[in-house]
């Protein structure tokens, strides 16, 4: 579509009779459009100036102040009033130094700020500013020099923001971080001390024990002929206690060692580990009539030596606690729960009362009498430590007189990739 201006001229023949109309049209679209654009842009300019002023005044979190070339205040938004407390009437025409610390003005800090803004066109700073009531806040400040068409300095615009809270919280975060680092450091030290303590205790406890055991044995072997039967019985008590303490020390030493060991993860064939662990169990396991069910287990990315130790502990527990069972059944298997392989060791032995389940993994905690089932109460603590060092978890379900199942999952880092699992399932 075009806009045109038209002229009509009546045409006549030689006799002066009208014989037609001549129409001449001129396209004036461009002219019309230019006029409209100019009107529109004038309106827009006016509107945008109003909007800009409103906008500046609506800015609550920033103090926006304009100064003349001498540093006297020429405009003041409501953010400034909010931030600094002075009303526009109070501050207009005043020297901007009223918003600064007295000493900053005296030391020439403010003058330097304006000088640098004038020289560079722009200047950023952080520092203390003063409110009307004399209180201070930490401000982030941008000062911009304003220049006229001829390049002469006509003044400055200063935009301030109160970042006291941010500064405080940054300071707090720094302090908290420092505290955290110190606490971690202390924790590391305590841990190291504890480990070296338990290690040396275990060693130093061995020496006197060897003497107790040694002399008691010499007494029994070489002098029991001259002793009352009761005295020989007491000697046996001493020897049994010494043996038990020896076991306690060895187990404690193991537990301490596991805390110090570096995990060496590798892809481990768990089924093979379990079979090795069963073959190496004490002779009781081979001599008794135990029914073993071992399912194929998925490979795990773990420390194979430690994993074997888990199974050795859980399996010898199972052997021990099925001792009074005529048809002992010990089962090893795996289930996927939440996509993670969870291994289990199940027996149909003595079981325990679930109300004591929380004591199960504590060092020296035992749920059975020494006379019924011997033990040091360190085995399961060791197992739990291994599982936790792998980032996993262990738990048990049990019923008195019908058996116990231990479950453990090693955590996400212990899985081999999905592809390998698939081939493994096929193989299984």
């Amino acid at each position, binding site marked *: 579509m075009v806009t045109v201006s038209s002229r009509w001229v009546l045409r006549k023949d030689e006799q002066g009779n009208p014989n037609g109309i001549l129409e001449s049209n001129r396209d004036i679209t461009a002219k019309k459009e230019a006029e409209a654009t100019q009107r529109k842009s004038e309106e827009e300019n006016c509107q945008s100036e109003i909007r800009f002023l409103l906008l500046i005044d609506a800015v609550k979190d920033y103090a926006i102040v304009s100064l003349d070339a001498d540093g006297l205040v020429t405009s003041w938004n409501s953010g400034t009033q909010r931030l600094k407390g002075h009303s526009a009437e109070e501050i207009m025409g005043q020297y901007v130094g009223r918003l600064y610390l007295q000493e900053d003005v005296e030391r020439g800090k403010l003058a330097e700020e304006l000088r640098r803004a004038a020289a560079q066109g722009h200047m950023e700073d952080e520092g203390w500013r003063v409110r009307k009531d004399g209180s201070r806040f930490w401000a982030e400040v941008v000062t911009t020099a304003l220049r006229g068409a001829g390049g002469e300095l006509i003044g400055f615009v200063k935009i301030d923001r109160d970042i006291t809270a941010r500064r405080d919280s940054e300071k707090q975060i720094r302090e908290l971080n420092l505290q955290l680092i110190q606490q971690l450091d202390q924790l590391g030290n305590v841990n190291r001390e504890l480990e070296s303590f338990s290690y040396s205790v275990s060693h130093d406890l061995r*020496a006197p024990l060897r*003497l107790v055991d040694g*002399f008691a*044995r*010499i007494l029994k072997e070489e002098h029991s002929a001259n002793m009352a039967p009761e005295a020989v019985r007491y000697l046996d008590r001493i020897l049994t206690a010494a043996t038990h303490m020896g076991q306690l020390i060895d187990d404690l030493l193991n537990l301490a060692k596991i805390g110090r060991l570096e995990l060496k993860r590798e892809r481990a064939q768990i089924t093979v580990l379990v079979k090795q662990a069963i073959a190496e169990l004490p002779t009781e396991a081979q001599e008794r009539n135990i029914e073993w069910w071992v399912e194929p287990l998925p490979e795990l990315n773990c420390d194979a030596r430690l994993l074997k130790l888990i199974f050795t502990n859980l399996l010898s527990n199972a052997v021990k606690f099925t001792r009074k069972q005529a048809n002992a059944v010990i089962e090893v298997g795996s289930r996927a729960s939440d996509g993670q392989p969870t291994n289990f060791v199940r027996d149909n032995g003595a079981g325990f009362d679930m109300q004591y389940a929380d004591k199960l993994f504590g060092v020296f905690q035992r749920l059975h009498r020494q006379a019924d089932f011997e033990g040091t109460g360190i085995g399961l603590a060791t197992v739990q430590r291994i599982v936790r060092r792998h980032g996993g978890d262990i738990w048990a379900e049990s019923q008195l007189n019908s058996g116990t199942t231990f479950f453990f999952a090693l955590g996400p880092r212990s899985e081999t990739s999905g592809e390998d699992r698939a081939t493994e399932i096929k193989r299984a």
Partner: protein
Amino acid sequence: MLESETVEILLVEDNLADAELAPHALKKSKVANRVLHVRDGAEALDYLFCRGEFAKRDEGVRPVLVLLDLKLPKVDGLQVLKQIKSEPRTKAIPVILLTSSKEESDMATGYQLGVNSYIQKPVHFGEFQEVVRQLGMYWLRVNSKPPAAAFLHV
């Protein structure tokens, strides 16, 4: 105290009760009867290098075997070992570390310094007796002692 001429084993051990157990085991299994017990590292070195109270002893007579504990007063076991193994006069004497420690760093240092054997004392006396019997059998009977030429100054 035994006449130094008759010493088969020099036992370096600060604990008196411990020092009684090893000779008991050796005597019982009839492997060695002549064990000299010294109670710290300094005394052991005095004996081996004929110093102090051992100044008058015949330097040409040496123990067949040194049984050395690690944790000793004054001069510790590894220091004693180091001095024995760095002196041509004593270097060839077999030294066995017989200790409660299975600390890897102790074992590594011991072997680096040239110890001939490192044995952790078993807690059970029965096992301890057996270990002492075996080592006595091996070093006093099976093994050929270093000849005098092995101790010549180079």
